[in-house]
């Protein structure tokens, strides 16, 4: 195993949480509102439930193949060649998510905070910092999330509390206005974003107690669902669904709504803090997962040399594939969910079934 670090369960929780927090602070809530309308919060609950179900599979596989992450056990299950072909999809998927996360971050910063700075500069600095962090290994990322995670959770909750005066609960009603179809379509949409937590399969072999994998994912997804649910719900009750679904970052707009008499206002800084910190740390753990996955597939001794090249590929993808925010939004909205559900659910279930049928087990 190229990675020597060991993390504990609480670090694992925050590692997973920060990934969800990063997507929650970008435009995912507004896409969700576009699809699910006022039932968006129900979709979040539904996705939470489904993701917890999925977590059982991942946790079980983690225990069945002790000390192996899914890149390794896909080789164990499917053999040297087919296994590698399946296994490489996971790291590539992480690189894709990393690209999306950083591009989204750059987009929000570019539109809301630094309008005249070229987005390339923002992207380069983001990738540089996340590769720098990712190269230091899982222990460092885990410790950072341990500091930032609770901070962000509290910040988002506080932010939502502060925005209550602008909220009118009547805007959340009526539920199921358009029947259950929006809810049913919205659930998988948000599930694929929670589903980035399949990173847990990379962490389980490194935790000091692999059997707590499910617990970790359960807590992380629950907190993530709270955060996403809060932002989604408050976007609806503050802006109404008509405005909320057109916003690029509803969370940012929420923070701009805060005003208490004349002193507590203009707190976008708090949101910027959440946005930048969570996205960069999340993408550094994604880069780390990419590097580690590739290193394991090719049997390298160390994964660190692959982090910076990975970041560079991701940067190039950002620049090449998403020349404007429109392509990015479109990709997240239409293409990403299909790709993600294939990797997150499809592949893992296939591996799970194959393991059961072929009676493959990890060696202790």
């Amino acid at each position, binding site marked *: 195993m190229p990675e020597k670090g060991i993390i504990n369960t609480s670090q694992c929780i925050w590692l997973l949480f920060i990934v969800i927090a990063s997507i929650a602070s970008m435009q995912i809530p507004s896409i969700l509102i576009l699809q699910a309308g006022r039932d968006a919060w129900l979709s979040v609950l539904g996705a939470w439930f489904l993701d917890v179900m999925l977590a059982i599979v991942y946790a079980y596989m983690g225990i069945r193949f002790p000390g192996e992450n899914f890149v390794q056990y896909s080789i164990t299950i499917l053999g040297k060649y087919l296994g590698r072909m399946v296994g490489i999809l996971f790291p590539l998927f992480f690189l894709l998510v990393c690209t999306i996360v950083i591009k989204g971050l750059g987009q929000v910063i570019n539109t809301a905070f*630094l309008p005249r700075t070229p987005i390339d500069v923002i992207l380069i600095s983001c990738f540089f*910092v996340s590769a720098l962090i990712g190269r*230091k290994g899982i*222990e460092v990322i885990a*410790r*950072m999330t341990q500091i930032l995670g609770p901070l962000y959770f509290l910040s988002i909750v506080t932010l939502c509390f502060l925005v209550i005066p602008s909220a009118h609960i009547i805007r959340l009603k009526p539920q199921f206005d358009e029947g259950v179809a929006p809810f049913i379509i919205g659930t998988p949409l948000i599930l694929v974003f929670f589903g980035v937590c399949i990173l847990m399969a990379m962490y389980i072999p490194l935790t000091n107690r692999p059997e707590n994998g499910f617990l970790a994912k359960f807590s992380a997804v629950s907190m993530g669902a709270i955060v996403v649910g809060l932002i989604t719900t408050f976007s609806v009750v503050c802006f109404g669904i008509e405005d909320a679904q057109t916003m690029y970052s509803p969370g940012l707009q929420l923070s701009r709504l805060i005003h208490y008499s004349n002193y507590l206002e203009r707190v976008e800084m708090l949101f*910027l803090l959440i946005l*930048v*910190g969570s996205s*960069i740390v999340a993408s550094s753990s994604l880069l780390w997962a990419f590097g580690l996955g590739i290193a394991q597939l090719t049997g390298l001794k160390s994964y660190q040399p692959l982090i910076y090249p990975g970041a560079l590929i991701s940067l190039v993808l950002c620049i090449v594939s998403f020349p404007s925010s429109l392509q990015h939004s479109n990709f997240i909205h239409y293409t990403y969910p299909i790709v993600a559900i294939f990797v997150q659910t499809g592949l893992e279930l296939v591996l799970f079934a194959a393991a059961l049928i072929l009676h493959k087990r990890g060696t202790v």
Partner: protein
Amino acid sequence: MKPLRTRKTKKTPEPEISQPSASDIEQKNMPLCSSVAENLITFQGIYSNCADFDYRELIIGQDQIPVLLLFIDGITDEQTINQNVLKSLMNIQCSKLDVSGSNSIEMIKNVFMEIGSIKEISTIGEVSEAILTGNVGLLLEGTTKALKIGTKGSEGRIVTEPVTEGVVRGPREGFTESLRTNTALLRRKIKTPSLKMEKFVLGSCTMTEVNIAYLEGTVNPKVVAEVKKRISRINVDSVLESSYIEELIEDNSFSLFPQIEHSERPDKIASGILQGQVAIFTDGTPFVLLVPTMVFQFLQSSEDYYDRFIYASSIRLVRFIFLNFALLLPGLYIAITTFHQELIPTPLLVSITAAREGVPFPTFVEVLIMEVTFEALREAGIRLPKSIGQAVSIVGGLVIGDAAVQASIVSSVTVIVVALTGISSFCLPSYSFGLGIRVLRFSMIFLGSTLGLFGILLGLLVMQAHLVSLRSFGVPYFAPIAPFNLKDAKDLVMRFPWWAMGERPRLFAKTNRRRQKFFMKPAPPDEKKP
């Protein structure tokens, strides 16, 4: 990380450290001559051109045996030599000494010499080392053995109040330059044989004595082993201050954060040892090192433990806030006033605009000018004699602050920001930690002026990644926050009362964690019970 280090271990012959003279190496292990006169010539050769080298020849006993006393003037205690050494030797006149050399040495050592510390030695090197450290070397005709008689002089400062770490409440003694005084001060606080002090001698020229002190049974043995390993690795010609050792044993030399704490307060060192840290005493300096260190220790002052815990906790909170000010305030000021004006409350924006009206420089340059001026003033004030120091502060405060604003070179808001930053940086109890913050503040200024808040956030993330990746002797530097440990966090921003801190920090003391009886919370006597 690791692959890099291996690059440096090229197969090059290790260069010898330059010695005072080449002949010394040969002589070091040479046995003594049985003839006193010959030995004297040898030593006179070694100590040629050494004005402070002194010797005394005398003849003792009925057999008229020549004896040679070698010592270095000034570092020995003259009174001890006169009253104890010479007197005891003179007393031998009437007794009979065995002629055969080695026995007579034994006789002198065991029967006659009225002195506490005495040891038999046999080579020229040993004798030389003995006299260099302030002992008297006694050479006797007819034997190749010599005696090292402890007559170390105790020239030095008396124990005074430490200058760098003053307290309102708490002990007022500080360490001195003398190692033995320092260890004595510690021993007076921790009176248990478990307090171990191990001796090392470092520096081929300075021969500085270094002691490591720890509490056996409490300390993590791995840490002690690591400290010993790193100290014995040291091979330098001189150790003049503990910082020499600090730089040679710390984990990451290029870090801006000090990874080893130092103090000149015996109570601070004692409390560190009691919770399982290892202290490193160096002869010749009042500053004692304490390892392993976590970053939050630099924000704790020993007085926190002497004040009532609620006050101490609130003062620590203030310190934490002002640490952030010292690090971020100028950077944030630049970032917000030049990038994110929408974040400033409207009336404040109007006054900042008014204050900046007519100032020729951009805010970034303005802040930089003032910050650099402030650092210069600070540096100027430290080294100057006290009487001139006041003049510096007058010049700084009045001329530069007020006149610069009047002349519209800088805006008054910038002066306020820089002044507040200056005050904040004085809130840090640790000077060396403050130095790191000072350097980082400038990088925050640069980041803030290029990318605004986003840049500062990136800088903070990198800084945080660096902080959590550091380790000091195997202990995570950012503990107990990351990795988080609730029990250790009792002594972090909050200082819990003593009765609540029943356990030593887990990261220092692995085995013997219980510090005191649990449930010692004081309560008024229950009157109902008889």
